[in-house]
């Protein structure tokens, strides 16, 4: 009898200790997943349901996909999504390539004046984006770039650089210097060293920075609003404004459907890359 008691007790305790864990997981599930669920059910509701039914009510017709049709056809979602991809992917590519190279030059290489240059980049993290809009518009106009997606690509690249450079510099800082010094003693060419040693060392970090930057750029509204002068250049976030009328009328259903499409897309990318990101963030991140 004593034997069974001592046998059972740790299991009970272990079970009791796990209860709060499950409660926390359950709470997080509710807090994070419920809004998503609500968004998806909202995209199936009619305007009338939005106005006259309680917020938590489920859609009356689960097969009402007309909001999606509306969002897709009159909302031009396909064009906007394509524009977002065409603006975000090149910008991300440039930000990463330029940023990693600059981070390498600023942290691994030895030269006078890297302190002030790093500080100059850092200052960029603090600059409010609103401040550069007017001069930039003038520059792009004079350069004949308005009416294309270039202003978006260039601005996103530049705005993403400070954080990327700063984070890359910190990642390179956490790599033991001996790695690079040994390579130079072996007579390795500096560019080769960058590609074969530097780049692979921070691969996880690159994924992390890329993902953080991706969501920042993808969700940008301010820059996209300012520099897209044509409807056919508009990005998805600007497109979401399309369901609001001139006097403030909102078409809730199609708005929700458009957001749902947007969110499901980002969710897929996120889940796909999640493991790498978590690894990257944990690997070095912005630890001082």
């Amino acid at each position, binding site marked *: 009898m004593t034997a069974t008691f001592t046998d059972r007790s740790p299991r009970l305790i272990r079970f009791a200790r796990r209860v709060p864990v499950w409660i*926390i997981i359950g709470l997080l599930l509710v807090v994070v997943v419920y809004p998503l669920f609500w968004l998806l059910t909202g995209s199936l509701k009619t305007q009338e349901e939005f106005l006259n039914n309680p917020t938590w009510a489920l859609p009356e017709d689960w097969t009402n996909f007309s909001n999606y049709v509306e969002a897709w056809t009159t909302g031009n979602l396909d064009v906007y999504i394509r524009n977002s991809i065409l603006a975000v992917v090149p910008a991300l590519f440039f930000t990463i390539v330029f940023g990693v*190279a600059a981070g390498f030059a600023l942290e691994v290489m030895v030269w006078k004046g890297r302190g002030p240059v790093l500080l100059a980049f850092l200052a960029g993290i*603090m600059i409010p984006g609103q401040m550069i809009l007017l001069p930039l518009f003038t520059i792009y106009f004079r350069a004949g770039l308005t009416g294309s997606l270039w202003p978006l690509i260039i601005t996103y690249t530049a705005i993403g650089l400070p954080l990327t450079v700063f984070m890359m510099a910190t990642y390179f800082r956490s790599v033991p210097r001996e790695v690079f010094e040994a390579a130079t003693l072996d007579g390795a060419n500096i560019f080769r060293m960058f590609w074969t040693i530097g780049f692979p060392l921070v691969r996880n970090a690159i994924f992390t920075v890329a993902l953080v930057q991706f969501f920042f750029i993808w969700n940008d509204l301010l820059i996209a609003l300012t520099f897209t002068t044509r409807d056919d250049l508009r990005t998805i976030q600007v497109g979401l404004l399309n369901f609001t009328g001139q006097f403030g009328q909102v078409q809730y259903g199609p708005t929700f459907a458009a957001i749902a499409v947007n969110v499901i897309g980002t969710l897929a990318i996120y889940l796909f890359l999640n493991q790498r990101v978590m690894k990257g*963030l944990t690997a070095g991140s912005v630890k001082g």
Partner: protein
Amino acid sequence: MNRVLGDPRAILVLLGPALLVYTLVMLVPIFWSLGYTVFEGNPITGFEFVGLDNFVALANDPKIADALVFTLKYAVVLTIAQVGFGYLLALIYVFWLRKASSLVRTLAFFPVVLPTVAVALLFQELFKIAPVNGLVNDLLNLAGIPSVDWFASPDTAFLVLILMDLWRSMGFYAVLLYAGLVDIPDDLFESARLDGASGWRLVRHIVIPLSLPVLLSSIIFSVNGTLKVFDSVLALTGGGPGNTTTPLTLYMYQTSFTYGEYGYGSSIALLLTIICLLVTIFIFRSSRRDLTKG
């Protein structure tokens, strides 16, 4: 060795593109914008030199004081909240969930990736009172508390704003801080436990001191982001009721583009930039100090 690692041509090739883009697209426009601070007008009406008038107006504008106070209040409260809750979550990941934390980390991180417009719409619906109650008011009613018109008073609107941004960023900070915590060597804890430390004392005397660098970076990181808050305010409250939730960035945007006062708008931006630069120098100092230490 220094011949290779200090090769000027290589530095130019590696650093050049980033520096060029950054200078042309960020630095030049910033100084260009600063030039506007001594002018009045906009591209439609033309610009007129006014000397230091804008700065005099800046000092005497009650709305600037309001916006500044709001910006600082928001930055401080949200930083405490998001780093605090993030840290709490991180502690739970490390000491409680251990290996099982991956799923929870993923879940908690998810709101970070949602577009601001969508999140704001969500919170507006959750906290709404008209024409039908949102979920929050429904729950209050269940508990016997009458419905609250959340967006009608400055304090409750501020609260909803903080809750929204906390919801959005908590998971992100949790992962950042988690990264710092998992690096603490296990034997440190063991020896502390052997000395009889446990629970809160363990956290206070071992965990917090050891994770101080990453905690500090997170705080600075957060202050920077929150000082520049724009999207979430615009999307959730539009700066209202009245202008009680208008941060400097939004006031600057309205001044420049809605009221057509570029010079004044640039002066506001300068004020914000100076505040931010002070933080920059702080961040830089602390990260350098850390480098020499390690």
